[in-house]
């Protein structure tokens, strides 16, 4: 089985984001970067499938030089080889999907995993667009995954419902948080990851169909109030606030 997992390196959400006036992306200096959390579930699902069926697992990422760290993590978690499409620009979803499509269209992957969305832009589109470009089955927001010749997944719906679906390969699956328990890469595997094949390629992105006009924090709403004191005092304060706003 040929398996692909698409990942993105994103800024750690605990970073302090600063956007210079007139800019449409935050200043990346001094920020810490990590493998997109959703993609960790995708990598884990892909590694588990590889362990189950054997086969070959490739990881791909589109991003600047630093994204190599995220690829290294996926290799340490169990991917066999990595493809790094070097791209310094901030691409929109369609552009990213198109760039990945150009790299993989001739590869005939049986299963492609992506995160449901990236934690920095959150469009949730790259996986599904890629599925459409490849003209294969796609299913999003997956919280359970099984494979026994066919794919069986569960999707998380609004209102706490879960839909169970079956579909045939080739297919693309976008992974929701909680799909599995992403493993820690072991230290020996981290050291071994540097010996795994990793190719760097460039691929011109198509023109963007969107224009980002501005980026910034939302206007400040009312300030949060910290409730302090012992437990009883805190509870009394919360009850008073709820009553004041006619919520209790």
């Amino acid at each position, binding site marked *: 089985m040929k398996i692909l997992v698409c990942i993105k390196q994103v800024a750690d959400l605990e970073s302090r984001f600063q956007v210079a006036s007139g800019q449409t992306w935050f200043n990346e200096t001094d920020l810490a970067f*990590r493998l997109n959390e959703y993609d960790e579930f995708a990598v884990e699902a892909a590694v588990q499938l590889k362990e189950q069926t054997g086969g070959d697992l490739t990881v791909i990422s589109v991003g600047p030089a630093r994204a*190599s*760290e995220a690829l*290294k*993590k996926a290799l*340490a978690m169990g991917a066999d080889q990595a493809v790094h499409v070097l791209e310094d620009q901030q691409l929109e979803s369609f552009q990213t999907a198109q760039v990945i499509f150009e790299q993989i269209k001739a590869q005939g992957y049986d299963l492609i995993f992506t995160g449901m969305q990236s934690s920095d832009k959150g469009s949730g589109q790259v996986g599904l667009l890629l599925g459409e470009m490849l003209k294969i089955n796609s299913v999003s927001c997956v919280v359970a995954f099984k494979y026994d010749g066919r794919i069986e997944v569960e999707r998380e719906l609004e209102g706490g419902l879960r839909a169970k679906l079956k579909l045939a390969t080739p297919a693309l699956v976008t992974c929701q948080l909680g799909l599995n328990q992403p493993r*820690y*890469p*072991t*230290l*020996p*595997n*981290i*050291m*071994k*990851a*540097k010996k795994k094949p990793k190719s760097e390629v460039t691929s011109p992105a198509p023109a963007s169909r969107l224009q980002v006009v501005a980026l910034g924090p939302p206007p400040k709403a009312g300030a949060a109030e*910290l409730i*302090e004191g012992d437990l009883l005092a805190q509870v009394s304060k919360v009850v008073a606030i709820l009553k004041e706003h006619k919520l209790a």
Partner: protein
Amino acid sequence: MDFGLNEEQKLVQATVRQMAQEQVRPKAAATDKNHAIPPETLPQLAELGLWGSYIPEEDGGSGLDYLSYILSVEALSAACASTGVLLAAHASLGCDPIHRSGTKEQKAKWLAPLCKGEKIGCFLLTEPGAGSDVASLKTRYLEQDDHYELTGSKQFITNGGYLGTGVVFATSDPSLGHKGISAFILDLKSPGVTLLKNEEKMGIRGSFTSAFALDQVKIPKDQLLGAPHQGFAIAMETLDGGRISISAQALGIAQEALDLALNYSTERQQFGKPIGQFQAIRFKLADMAAALESARLMTYKAAWLKNQHQESAQVSAMAKLLASKAAQFCTDEALQIHGGYGYSAEYPLERLYRDAKITEIYEGTSEIQRIVIAKGLEKG
């Protein structure tokens, strides 16, 4: 010069940090209170490959570079100082001398199980009457036909309570001073080895600090480590490395104290604003950050040198002196910033404060570090 970490180092740091924050940190207060590291922590360290640290893969280790190992001890110690020293003593004091001075057969028999965490490593040098003055140790060994026989006592042995594998030092003749000392690999479950007690301590309470009586302990000849009477050199080289790992433990404690203080100073309101807006607090935070960062640079330099096989006793001693001082200073100031809450056992500061103190004492007191540094000056 390049002060950046490489990809593997960053990934090791992030991985150990994540594991430590998720699995170890929530149990740090209980570890202190119960005077024991929870038993489930040991297999968790094994799963990650931490026990194998910087020992090469061909010897059964995890093959980390030395700085990655140091980053691991730092990340683990930020979560729990007792768990940090469990790894530091195991790797730097238990595994390191066998790795450096052991034969191929000794490595296969003793080092490989240590690297898997099947045995926990320790280092039996200190005695009731021989602390900083190592050469005055009294544990004697007699050479017999097919074995050595050791008799004496050992004290303050970190990780001793696990009864794993130790490197033990003894003299053939106390009048020879440091020239009479040999090193041996010891299975702590051997007949004649008696665990007298695990000390009750001010800090790092989850860590075993054990006292042993050795009564005619038979050690097979093939467990002599290095050459006869090479023990003092083995001990000193081991401690040079051990000091870097204790520096890393100190960095972890100091970082945790700074993080907690920073967090508290933005949340705690007095006189109508967060206390972090008062210069008195800001200056404390600035001094803590500067002390921590300078100690970190020195520690990483010592680790980098060791990785290049350019170990420097002087640089390691400087790292240990600075880092333990930073840990003591940062925990003290962080506790002060927390005021009454810092003194309360409901907050972690009083534990960090107690944990920090040991870093100025073990693997050479700060006074011993100064002696090592000054000796280095004379050579130059």
